[in-house]
């Protein structure tokens, strides 16, 4: 029996070894076919579907006691669900260290953001994915979208983007903006703001995606071509609020808008709390 087992009667990292092997096999296929959704036998987790069960199962299948885990939600380490997931792993993976520092982490589980600090080789990003099918709003039948992916037939999405431009003068998706991976698969980047999309392209880190409820995994290997869908005459433009962080003064980061009173008062602060804190500490030193 493993030395690390038997925390509260559960295996190391909660999942039983058979489930981990099943997920590990699926992850290797996902890496070998970048951007392709791989079905997996997602299990019921002690957290609800939709609250990160896919990401949690991926993290649980790769994590070891030598890892340093960071969990963020909306870019912040102290949002309630990030706290809850970090506590879960601290509880079921004895020996695992957790951190709030991007530079220290070997695994970063995230919901809705990619850290501002550039990622490096040796790091693994684990994305929580609510809806892995990028075409679902255009074609809800998954038996049909599967066929479209097999044929690399993404005309539906091209038409949708074209209509957005005709109607609004720009591509209308502000988050979860679809990307082409390795020039072959259309992929949902998860609901990250389009501001973060360019960070996926040629990232030195391995990026893994888990959708627990929809029972799909997918991956973007390091140094892989990831293009946000656009048109030559309407190139993809990542958006951020045109403001300055009230805490660290950054003008190049993704900002959260804070409502400060009921008379229209508002200010902006960095969504990435670790990056913002580091900037503040550097300024103070």
């Amino acid at each position, binding site marked *: 029996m493993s030395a690390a087992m038997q925390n509260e009667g559960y295996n190391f990292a*909660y999942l*039983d070894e058979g489930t981990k092997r099943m997920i590990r096999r699926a992850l290797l296929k996902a890496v070998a076919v970048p951007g392709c959704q791989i*079905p*997996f*036998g*997602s*299990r*019921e*987790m*002690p957290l*609800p*579907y*939709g*609250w990160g*069960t896919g990401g949690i199962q991926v993290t649980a299948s790769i994590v070891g006691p030598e890892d340093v885990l960071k969990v963020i*939600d*909306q*870019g912040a380490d*102290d*949002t*309630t*669900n*990030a*706290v809850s997931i970090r*506590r879960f792993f601290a509880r079921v993976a004895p020996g695992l260290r957790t951190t709030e520092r991007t530079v220290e982490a070997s695994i970063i589980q995230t*919901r*809705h*953001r990619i850290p501002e600090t550039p990622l490096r080789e040796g790091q693994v990003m684990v994305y929580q994915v*609510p809806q892995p099918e990028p075409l679902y709003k255009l074609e809800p*039948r*998954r*038996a049909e979208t599967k066929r479209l992916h097999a044929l690399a037939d993404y005309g539906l999405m091209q038409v949708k983007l074209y209509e957005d431009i005709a109607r*609004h*003068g*720009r591509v*209308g998706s*502000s*988050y*979860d903006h679809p990307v082409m991976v390795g020039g072959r698969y259309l992929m949902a980047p998860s*609901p990250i*703001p*389009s*501001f973060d999309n360019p960070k996926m392209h040629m990232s030195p880190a391995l990026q893994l995606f888990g959708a627990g*409820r929809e*029972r*799909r995994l997918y991956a973007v290997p390091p140094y892989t071509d990831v293009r946000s869908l656009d048109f030559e005459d309407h190139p993809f433009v990542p*958006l951020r*609020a045109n403001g300055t962080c*009230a*805490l660290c003064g950054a003008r190049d980061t*993704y*900002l*959260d*808008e*804070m409502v*400060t009173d009921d008379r229209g008062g508002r*200010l902006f*602060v960095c*969504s990435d*709390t670790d990056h913002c804190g580091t900037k503040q500490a550097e300024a103070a030193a």
Partner: protein
Amino acid sequence: MYVAVKGGEAAIANAHAWLAEERRGDPAVPEIGTDQIGEQLTLAVDRVMAEGSCYDPGLAALAIKQSRGDLIEAIFLLRAYRTTLPRFGASEPLETGAMLVRRRISATYKDLPGGQVLGPTFDYTHRLLDFALAAEGHAPSPAPEADPGEDAACPRVTAMLADEGLMAPEQPSDAEPGDVTRTPLTYPAGRALRLQNLARGDEGFLLSMAYSTQRGYGANHPFVGEIRQGEVTVEIVPPELGFAIEIGDINVTECQMVNQFNGSRTEPPQFTRGYGLVLGRTERRAMSMALVDRALRAEELGEEVVAPAQNEEFVLSHSDNVEATGFLEHLKLPHYVDFQSELEIVRAMRAAATPQAMREAAE
């Protein structure tokens, strides 16, 4: 100077302490025991076992207590526990023909071998609040018992129809069925996986889908051929023994709906079956399942697929309340990053669309 909000961890701990206090309620009122739930809220326990796909009345009662009576929450608790259990084997097919029947009715025959056995049913009760139950110490007088000697054999109604050649036969198969709890569904899923999915689907969802077929969304002409409820024996064949051994008895409800079928190019006019088999005394679920099963056989029987209840992918991918409630409730999680990007794009589009109006509004 703006100070960032912190303290997620403390907030969660405090919220859960409050939850525990609320769960207990007024300490002056005696605490409810899981034995009381198990004995007196049996139908809640049965629903939790059925949709939790785990036959354990004690754990289901605990889940109901822990969830403060929120049955979907209780089902989730039981599912999350179930998924950690090691698997020792698969049972032999249940022989519901050999059921120790507590209730057995047929709507298609006035009388039949085995008889009509009403059993402990709400049917024909007058739904008047019984204020006597509000008083403590209420002990009902024992119900009269029938002579156990008679009505021993209880053949299935559908078998009787089949003997006459009027019931479309099912295709027997020795193939090992898939397992919806281990493998993601792909479509078409096929009947074995479909029935597994329905057997633990949300009762409200199944009921509404079944009801829609009765109102014409997917033509169905159902008769209750038979509903039977009672205990069946579960057997497994341990590989080291090579023969079946009994591991226990479970309560199940089986419903066989008989549906008129006009025939097709290849099939003569006959009756077709909609089948429901569920854990526990969950009759509404068994009936709903049988109607939905029949509706989902549309393609197989050459009927036009026009209604939601006939659409396999639609029904099976939305039947699970643990999935549905999780995804619905995740909308409570912070989404301010996505919302911010929506704000930016809506503002940008408005500015581009009506620069004059926006300037005026800003002034």
